[in-house]
Structure formats: structure tokens, C-alpha cells
């Protein structure tokens, strides 16, 4: 191949750069830059590109750049991808890991909302964390065209180092099969908290991912845990849900992907979702049995916030503990839907207090008003209260606060 083009340009493209590289036999590096930020960053862009080519050992080349305000980590990724296409270089130019990105996740954290970002569209990366999703997914799978997988992998790697995630859980959705394992090589060394495994149909494929991660970590000397979230998107996957959920101790959640699932069934996906009721129930039950979180599919009509909210409420009622989102505006709605309502908290508080009261008086039977309360009801109420405390809706010492009123 003589010439390689990476990145994106066009009237609607923002924060990206299109790089066309042609390697030559002589004549040094010729650089052409078109940029809307040329007067401010033209020199910086040119210097950066020359340094990158030098790093990759490219001495003679023509480099044409159409820039739409790309940040340095994007420029670096695009140039590296172009060089790699032409020379197959294994070298990687890593941007600095910003200190804001050095933090860990935890098994037990909330995963109400996780925001999907198409892995080859850097324009959406920068502010994603500002919308406070529980997790940010840099997606290498369905949102990236097959012929862009290689450049997306480099871009995502750079983003993991240079883009502030503002405390969100750092997730990557890898591709299926072999390609997914290659994805892992690129991303695992850069503090990924969780890997989403798409179209997961059996425990073995999940274990392969888990083992590949383990071997990369051994090689890199990492000892942090990389968590797993398989996505069930087929009838086969649904049938094997429990097996998949228990395939590795690193699995913390299991999601369902309804677009592919309904396609597998050969039925239409509806807003009511009766066609996927069984599958969703099955996922919830399997996840609960495995002691992990069940996560619902994305709601794809980004303009319909009312529809989203009722979807979230029915998800919550079924036992799901989170949902994917494809637009930042969905995050707050999802969080609100999964949070306990003031009425729920109020009622749960009364039950918990009545229970403690009964205990302290040595009563075997708990009653609220004239109604007897069974132990599971108390347990559920306690769960609601714990959730409200963790979400900071009520204070840790809510019982004392209650007493004051």
C-alpha cells in the first residue's frame, strides 16, 4: 500500500482530523495542513506530526491533514494508525496518562447508566464524563465500521490515557472473537475497569476473554481487577445465561441487547417489549442467582424521555439494576428511574423503624399499624434504605434525623 487515510473530515465532523500519509523514498517530510484552528494551533499541529513521524522512523513522506479542531491525543492516534497501515509498525506512541484517570472501580458500584460512545468519533469523548454517567463505554464493536476497527482501537487507547472520565467507570466494548482479543491487547494496559463482551453465547468464550486479560496483566505486571459484563444478544445466550454469569468471578453484571436478540428471534422490537419478556426475566433471574447485576438494553428513541422513564420503571420493577444509554440526556432520567422514590423511602423507613422497635421490645412479630410485616418485607425495605443512603438521597444517620422531626 502506498497511501493511507485515517480519521474523519467533513462539514459535520468536530474535534477530529483526517490524515493522509504517503511514504516516499526521499525528499523529507512534506506537510499540508488545512485547519479551522490554524492561526492558533497550526504550528503546534505541525510540530506534533513531525515528531510523531520521527518517532515511527518515517523520514520521507507526504502528510496531508484536514483538521476540525482535533486535540493532540486524536492527532497522535490518527497519525499512528496511518503509519501502522503502511508499515505495520508495532510501536505505539502513548500520550501521557493524566492523573485524573488513575483510580479504581469496585465490584459493588452502581451501574444504573452506562453511556456508549462510538469508538471512532472523538468529538463525543471529551465531555461525556461531565454528564455523570455511572460508566462510559468506548465502543469498538457495532458503532465502528469494519474497515475502521484498527484506527478506532488506537484512538480508544489514547482516550483511555488522555481524556478525563470524571470518575465514571471506564469501560470498553470489544469486538467478538479473535478481533476482540486483539482489542484487549490495546486497551487492557491503560486502566480499563470493565470489558463488555458482546453477543456472548457460552461460558467458554467468556473464559477466553478472561484468560487473555489475565495474561496481558501478567505481562504488564498489573494487579488490578478487570471486571466483565457479558451482553446476551441471542436465544442461545439466554438459554445459557446462568452458566455465563458464573463463568468467572470477574463477571459483575450481565446485560441484554435487545436489537440483536429480537433479530435472532426474527421478531420486531416493540416499545412494550412483550417479545423479550421471557429473555429479560431469564437474565434477571440468572444474574440474581449468580449474585451479579442485571442490566437492561438501551432505549433507542433519544427524543422520547417520557417513554424512556416508563421503560426504566418497568425495568426496575422486573429486577434490573441499570440500563445502557446512547445519549447523555438519558443519564439523569435513568438514574431518577432506578432511584427509590420519596414514597418508597418513606414507607421503607417506617418498616425498618418498626422492625427495630419490635426487636428492642423483644417482640417476635413486627407490625406497622394494623398490618403484620414478614421478614422478606423488612429485608426489602432495608435494601431500599441502603440504596437511598448510597445515593445520598437520605443521610447515613437517617434514623436519628427521623427522630428529630
Amino acid at each position, binding site marked *: 500500500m502506498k497511501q493511507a487515510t485515517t480519521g474523519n473530515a467533513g462539514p459535520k465532523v468536530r474535534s477530529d482530523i483526517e490524515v493522509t500519509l504517503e511514504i516516499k523514498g526521499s525528499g523529507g517530510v512534506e506537510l499540508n495542513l488545512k485547519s479551522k*484552528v490554524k*492561526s492558533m494551533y497550526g504550528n503546534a499541529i505541525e510540530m506534533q506530526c513531525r515528531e510523531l513521524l520521527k518517532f515511527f522512523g518515517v523520514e520521507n513522506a507526504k502528510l496531508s491533514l484536514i483538521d476540525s479542531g482535533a486535540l493532540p491525543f486524536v492527532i497522535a492516534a490518527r497519525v499512528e494508525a496511518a503509519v501502522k497501515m503502511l508499515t505495520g509498525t508495532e510501536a505505539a506512541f502513548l500520550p501521557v496518562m493524566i492523573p485524573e484517570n488513575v483510580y479504581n472501580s469496585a465490584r459493588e458500584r452502581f451501574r444504573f447508566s452506562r453511556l456508549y460512545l462510538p469508538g471512532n468519533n472523538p468529538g463525543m469523548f471529551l465531555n461525556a464524563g461531565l*454528564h455523570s454517567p455511572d460508566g462510559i463505554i468506548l465502543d469498538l464493536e457495532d458503532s465502528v465500521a469494519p474497515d475502521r476497527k484498527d484506527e478506532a482501537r488506537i484512538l480508544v487507547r489514547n482516550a483511555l490515557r488522555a481524556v478525563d472520565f470524571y470518575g465514571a467507570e471506564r469501560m470498553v466494548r470489544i469486538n467478538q472473537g479473535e478481533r476482540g482479543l486483539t482489542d484487549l491487547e490495546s486497551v487492557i494496559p491503560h486502566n480499563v475497569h470493565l470489558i463488555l463482551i458482546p453477543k456472548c453465547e457460552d461460558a467458554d468464550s467468556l473464559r477466553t476473554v478472561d484468560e487473555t486479560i489475565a495474561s496481558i496483566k501478567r505481562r504488564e505486571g498489573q494487579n488490578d481487577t478487570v471486571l466483565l459484563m457479558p451482553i446476551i444478544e441471542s436465544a442461545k445466550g439466554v438459554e445459557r445465561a446462568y452458566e455465563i454469569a458464573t463463568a468467572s468471578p470477574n463477571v459483575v453484571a450481565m446485560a441484554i441487547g435487545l436489537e440483536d436478540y429480537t433479530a435472532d428471534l426474527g421478531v420486531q422490537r416493540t416499545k412494550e417489549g412483550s417479545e423479550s419478556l421471557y429473555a429479560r426475566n431469564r437474565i434477571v433471574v440468572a444474574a440474581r442467582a449468580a449474585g451479579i447485576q442485571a442490566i437492561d438494553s438501551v432505549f433507542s428513541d433519544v427524543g422520547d424521555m417520557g417513554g424512556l422513564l416508563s421503560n426504566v420503571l418497568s425495568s426496575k420493577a422486573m429486577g434490573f439494576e441499570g440500563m445502557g444509554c446512547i445519549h447523555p*440526556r438519558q443519564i439523569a432520567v435513568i438514574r431518577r428511574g432506578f432511584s427509590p422514590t420519596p414514597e418508597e423511602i418513606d414507607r421503607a423507613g417506617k418498616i425498618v423503624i418498626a422492625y427495630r422497635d419490635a426487636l428492642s421490645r423483644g417482640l417476635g412479630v413486627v407490625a406497622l399499624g394494623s398490618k403484620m410485616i414478614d421478614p422478606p418485607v423488612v429485608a426489602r425495605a432495608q435494601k431500599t434504605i441502603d440504596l437511598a443512603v448510597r445515593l445520598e438521597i437520605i443521610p447515613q444517620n437517617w434514623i436519628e434525623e427521623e427522630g428529630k422531626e
Partner: protein
Amino acid sequence: MKLIENAAGRQVPDEINGTEAVPFKGVGKHRPSGRKYAPSIPTCIDYPEDNNKVIISLREALVKCGLKDGMTISTHHHLRDGDLISNQIFEIAAELGVKDLVWFPSASFPCNDPVIEYLENGTVNRIEGSMNGPLGRFVSEGRMKGMAVLRSHGGRVQAIQDGEVRIDIAVLSAPAADSFGNAKGTGGPSATGVLGYAKADYMFAERVIVVTDTLVDLPCFPMEIEGNYVDCVVVVDKIGIPEKIVSGTTQITKSPDRLLIAELTASFLEKSGLLRDGATMQAGAGGTSLAIAVYAHEILRRKGWKFRFGFGGSTKYMVSMLEEGQMGYILDAQAFDLDAVRSVEINPNHIPYPVFNAYNYHSKGNLTTMMDIMILGATEIDTGFNGNVVTHSDGLLLHGIGGWQNCLHARNVIIPVPLFRDRIPVIVDRVTTLCGPGELIDVIITERGIAINPRRQDLIDSVKGKGLPLVSIEELKETAERICGKPDRAAFDERVVAAIKWVDGTVIDAVRKVKY
């Protein structure tokens, strides 16, 4: 012409297009003297006894009004991007071989780009008004013969009143007019709702031509242009393209990042107590401002509160506050969308209010100082809270000042802006062009934090400990540079291509020719 340093530390010309100019002296420091300008005294014996002033064409009207070399022609911008009249003036002038005109619009729009041709062929010497898009680029590249002068809406009427700009002929398009020249913004296919930018022009111009496509029987009432100031009435097929005059609907932004800024702004308004029962508010028609208005409306509704009044440009969002009882009155200089146009026509509490009465600094009061909450935009803000609205960081002149400078005199000036646009930082060391002094700008709200001007300790105290992401303006600037990299400054030639006037007619800054 030589350059002198003004009170804001900017090098400005002491002379503009052959007339002496006063450098900016500081906010509230310049005291005008002398008497207001007045056009010559007309007599009704020169006008038809039946008061029928209808002339068959704009060309004849211009000839009758004595169009000749070097004249200043004013227009208003109520027809916005649907204006079919302004360009015609210069087309006619070119046919007549008239040279060196000065175009003095209250704003220009992309539809006015053809004027570039008349700037190139010498028909027009210069524009004194807003410079947008290709016109701005034309000026920035040093291709305009005369020096551009940019004024705020209030500065424009001040310049007219004080005689700094003497309008020879005002060509005022009117959606409806009678044969005597009374005219209004409602009625007809090209309704603009309000004609709030026409008043100073018709009062102080030597000659006034009203152009309409809807001639109504006398009296055209309620008139916003008074017929006794009018020389001729021209009736044409069409003064404007309706769908480009008002946007069918103004829309709140769909950008999640801008909505985040809007939410943060609404939260600031609520937590600071600025938003309260009886407050007054003004916000623009930009997507973020509209979102803020919608969120503010929700808060008012929830609390059972009401704005005492809002100042337009009006939009459907203000109209819904008015109609649902969360706003007492809309005082309005321009209507931005169809709902606003309809509201002016039917709602007695939606009141046309000329810019001349609201924004003129050389006047016995200034309406903007009564506004509690003022939401504005900016292309750049620097660490001294100084603002730029006319040039981009690359030095190109791309926007007009609009009412921005006038609105800075509100009680609380809040500027919601993204910290950077693409890679271009909005919060910078020093604004490329100074349009408004930092002492008048109180709060900058970005997606990455809120900076309150240290001069406003009261505001800082009002929101302390209330969960808002308060940062210093320097921190904002550093964050922007850490993400984007430190930008090179735009390179300029020595030549001054535009002067930026302050609200009192003094020169606050100058724009130089860009160097590529």
C-alpha cells in the same frame, strides 16, 4: 490618524474616517456636551395636500430624496435574513452611478452579502454596523475602502441622536403602512411583530422612505413609525421572505453539552436567589439562552413566582411565560419567531418598546440597569472578565455587537459559554478585541465550572456551600489550556480596519487587518 492608548489599555485611532474620535475613558466617565442633532425643519407645503406620499418605485423615491455621492443610508434589520430591500438600494445607486455611500444598518445578515459587490465597485465606501460572515471576512482582510465602525444597538441610536452619524436617507421597510407613512410591524405577509429599531432613524434622518408590501387605509394603527416624519411611501410586491424573517420556531439547543451549561445556569439562578418573585430577566434567542429560559420558567412555575417583566427580543418561550402567568409584561424591540409575532398583535401586555427608549446611554435613564438577570454570550472572556463578541480568536470579524454592550449594564450579567469550542479556548489571557470591560461582567458559567467576578463578593457569598462547582477564572483558563494546548495569538497587520465603539460613543478598541 494616529493610535493612542485608551483607558482600557487598547491602542485606538484618534480619528475615524476623517472625524475626530474620543478614546474610551472608563465606564461612566465620558460626559457628553452640546446639543442633540436635528435634521432640517420640513414644511407641509412641500408635501401633497391629500397626504398621499406613495411613489411608484424605490428608485424614484431615492432620486426624489436626492440620493448622491457620500450619503449615509440607514436601514433596520427587522426583516433579518429575509430582507429583500437593503441590497436593492445599492443596486439602484450603482445604476445611477452614485459613489462612496455609507451603509448604516442596525444589523446585517447573510442575505446582505451581495453588498460586497458594491463595496468592491465603489458604490459603497464602508459599512457602519454589524459585520457577519463573509462581510466580516471582507473587512478583516482589509478590502473595505473606509474604516468599519461597530456599535451596539444603543450606541447606534446614541450616535444618531448626538449627530455622530447623520443619516441622509433612512429606508425603512414596514410590514404594513398607510399612504401618509404611518407604519407598523404587524399585519401583511412579512410581519415582523415589532419595529423597535426604526425610531431614531425616522426621527433624525434628513429623508425617510417607508417601503411596504401591504398598504392599508389610514390610520395604520398602532403606528411604530409616525407618518409626519416620512417623505415617501414605496409599495412593492414583497419586502421580505417570510420564512427567513422570523424563524418558524426558535428552538432550544439539542446539544447535551449546551443543555448541561443551561442547567447549571438555572441552578445558579435559583441557588443565588437572583431568580425570585418579581425579578426581571432578559436572555437572547440563542439555543442555550432559550434552554435557560425554559428551565427558569419551570422554577417559577414550581415556586408560584412571576417575572415582573422581560425584555425582548421575544421568543415563544417568553410568550409562554406571559400567557401562563409567569411573566407580567414583555417589553419588546424585536420578535424572533411566529409565536412572538402573534403575541404582539393580540396581547396588550406584550408591548413594543423601541431600542431608542431602552438602550440609549445619552438619555435620562437606561432600561437595562433595571434588569436583575441578564444572560449573554461571548466569543472570548479573559481572566479580567473582559468580553469579546465581535472577533473570533483567529482575529476575523464575524459578529455584530447587537445589544450586548448595553445589556452589560444590568444588575447581574451572567455569561454561559463552553470552556472551549472545538479546540479554541473561550476563556483566554486577554481578549482579542475588547468589547465590554470586565467590571460589568459578573458570572461566567461553563460546563467545567462557574467563575464569579471577585468584585461581586455578594454573589460569591450567596452561592457558597450550595453545591455549585465554583472556580476562579484563572482555573478555567488553565483547564482550557491543559485540554486544548496554549494557542498562538492571531497575527495582525498594523492597519486598523474597524473601530469598536463603547455605548457612550468613545472608542474602546480597534480591529486590525488579519495576517495569514
